């Protein structure tokens, strides 16, 4: 039982990271119907920026993290202005391919920095160990991941319910034409969505960096793991992104703990089912409930 709860908690901690990354992804999709394949690269860039500011420039970790969030948001904004803006009205394949090409460009740019290869760890600013709750151990980085996500979600909740910009974003997501004719600047909303996506990606990257260190490949892989999360929750649902992210995180944690020994017995050597599990879920969801748990079901027969 303790094992089970322990796995659950570490799964939730990882899932919170996915949820953060998925949030930006969903925002972009919801407002502009663009699937962003460069999400993993934004995560990596956010994390590396924070590292560079904290370790090379010697800034306090919290200040460095804050600056990295803002810089990555700026990067998201610039990406929208420079690349996506030109593709409004183009077929969907062009838009998807541009984000894929962009991912490749960002990869190349990262190889031009020392971050391209090797592992980096943030200077520890949290005390070692963690909370002990009746035999359960929650490490401080895990606690940080969960706390960070909760804070972000509360902020977003407030932003979308109360602020003018948030309401404008919801309006554009619901009906672009109508909101345009009522004087909402769709352009501004698109740019804002990308900026927020950069912000959340960087947040996810920084948390990963604190929990398990920085490595370009594994940070980019998080960008891929986000796809199952958003399909599970519903591609255009913000709460869905969070729920989907946490479910995927928990599933991964469970498949490492329970499925891998089973697979090893059956003869599939090595296990590592946590890498395939999200995509199996993705495929099954697409077969049976393609719009996800919370996604809006488009009423049309294809």
């Amino acid at each position: 039982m303790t094992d089970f709860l322990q796995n659950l908690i570490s799964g939730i901690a990882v899932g919170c990271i996915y949820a953060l990354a998925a949030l930006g992804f969903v925002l972009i999709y919801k407002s502009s119907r663009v699937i962003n394949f460069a999400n993993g690269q934004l995560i990596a860039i956010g994390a590396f920026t924070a590292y560079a500011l904290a370790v090379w420039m010697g800034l306090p970790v919290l200040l460095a993290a804050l600056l990295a969030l803002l810089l990555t948001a700026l990067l998201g904004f610039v990406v929208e202005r420079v690349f996506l803006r030109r593709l409004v009205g183009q077929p969907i394949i062009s838009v998807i391919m541009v984000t894929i090409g962009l991912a490749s460009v960002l990869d190349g740019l990262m190889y031009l920095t020392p971050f391209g290869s090797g592992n980096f760890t943030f200077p520890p600013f949290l005390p070692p160990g963690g909370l002990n709750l009746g035999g359960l151990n929650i490490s401080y980085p895990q606690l940080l991941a969960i706390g960070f996500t909760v804070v972000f979600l509360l902020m977003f909740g407030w932003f979308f319910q109360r602020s003018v910009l948030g309401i404008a974003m919801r309006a554009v997501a619901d009906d672009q034409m109508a909101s345009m004719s009522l004087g909402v600047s769709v352009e501004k909303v698109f740019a804002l969505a990308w900026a927020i996506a950069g912000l959340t990606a960087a947040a996810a990257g920084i948390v990963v960096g604190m929990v398990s260190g920085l490595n370009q490949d594994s940070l980019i892989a998080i960008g891929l793991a986000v796809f199952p999360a958003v399909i599970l929750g519903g591609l255009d649902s913000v709460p869905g992104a969070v729920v989907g992210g946490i479910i995927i995180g928990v599933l991964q944690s469970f498949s490492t703990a329970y499925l891998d020994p089973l697979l090893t017995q059956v003869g599939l050597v090595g296990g590592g089912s946590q890498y395939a599990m999200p995509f199996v879920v993705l495929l099954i969801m697409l077969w049976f409930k393609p719009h996800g748990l919370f996604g809006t079901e488009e009423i049309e027969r294809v």
Partner: protein
Amino acid sequence: MRNPWAQTGNYRTSYAQDTTIFANYREIVSVGLLLVALCLLPLFLERSQVLVLNFILIYAIAVLGLNITTGYAGLISIGQAAFMGVGAYTVALTAPSLPFWLTLPLGGLAAAVAGFLVGIPSLRVKHLYLALATLAFQEIFVWVVGRSPALAQGAAIPVEMRNFLGLEITFRNHNYFWYYVILFVLVLMVIAWRNLLRGKYGRALIAVRDNDRAADAMGMDPGRTKLFAFALGAFYGGVAGGLLAYLQRAVVVEEFTLARSVALLAMAIVGGLGTVVGSLLGPAFIEFLRLGVERLSEWMKANPFIQSITPAGVDVASALLPLSFGLVIVLFLIFEPRGLYNWWRLVRSYFRTWPFKY
């Protein structure tokens, strides 16, 4: 047709003429010349250069398949490399017991079944969801192959073919022999492609791509058409993968990863979606770009001046490839979304209308 030197427009007067494979006899002559040139080309090339050509032709077959799924039916497939992999592994498993002209179509069929399964969500959802289904298949494929003892956990499985109709295939003539096999298969696949897509099924694919509800109203079954597109595109991928297995004398999972899928998609777009010429130009362009960048980074590694100005820990050589690749994709999509095919078309129409401007 009456006077080809003063061709000013469309002389077709019947539906049968409109659906011929070749528009006029000049096209037949030029395609024939191209084929002869391609047949003679290896005589002037070294073994390693022929190998490059072989890869380009194999990718051309895979890209032709992608041009059915993505170019014609408009279904984005980020899993073409995995379909190639299904074909390659089928070939690797059947090659010891079957001749190669049987294993190749078998590989294609296995891939087509996979494509059919991956396409099932297309019965209910569109566009982006399908792209993600192919992505999921791609990732699952790599994982399954990488973990299965039966498939050597992704390490090399040898694919041997020692002789063909009395001709002994040795290290020296290996590339040349497979060049002609691949060329033959490619020509066959191109003819099938043109034949299929100029008729009923091809038109159905276009109709479903452009507006699937209208196509539905006109009596086509959009779901079935999309499944057909997926299966057929995967078939081409499977055959290409099988050829790759024979050419390399082995299969390794690294050949069939997400990066390769993306590269194939880039080839299709750079060449021009939904065109035969583009399916040849795209792979050639991307492969030569890769070779050029590799040559450049080797030169940079050897050059002491560039070594002295790059800071420690920075790997410029491995940065250049993704950087140039991504830039090519982005620039083409922004400035020439119709791809190299459009340049080819412009050049051709320039010659045809000379000395008039248009």
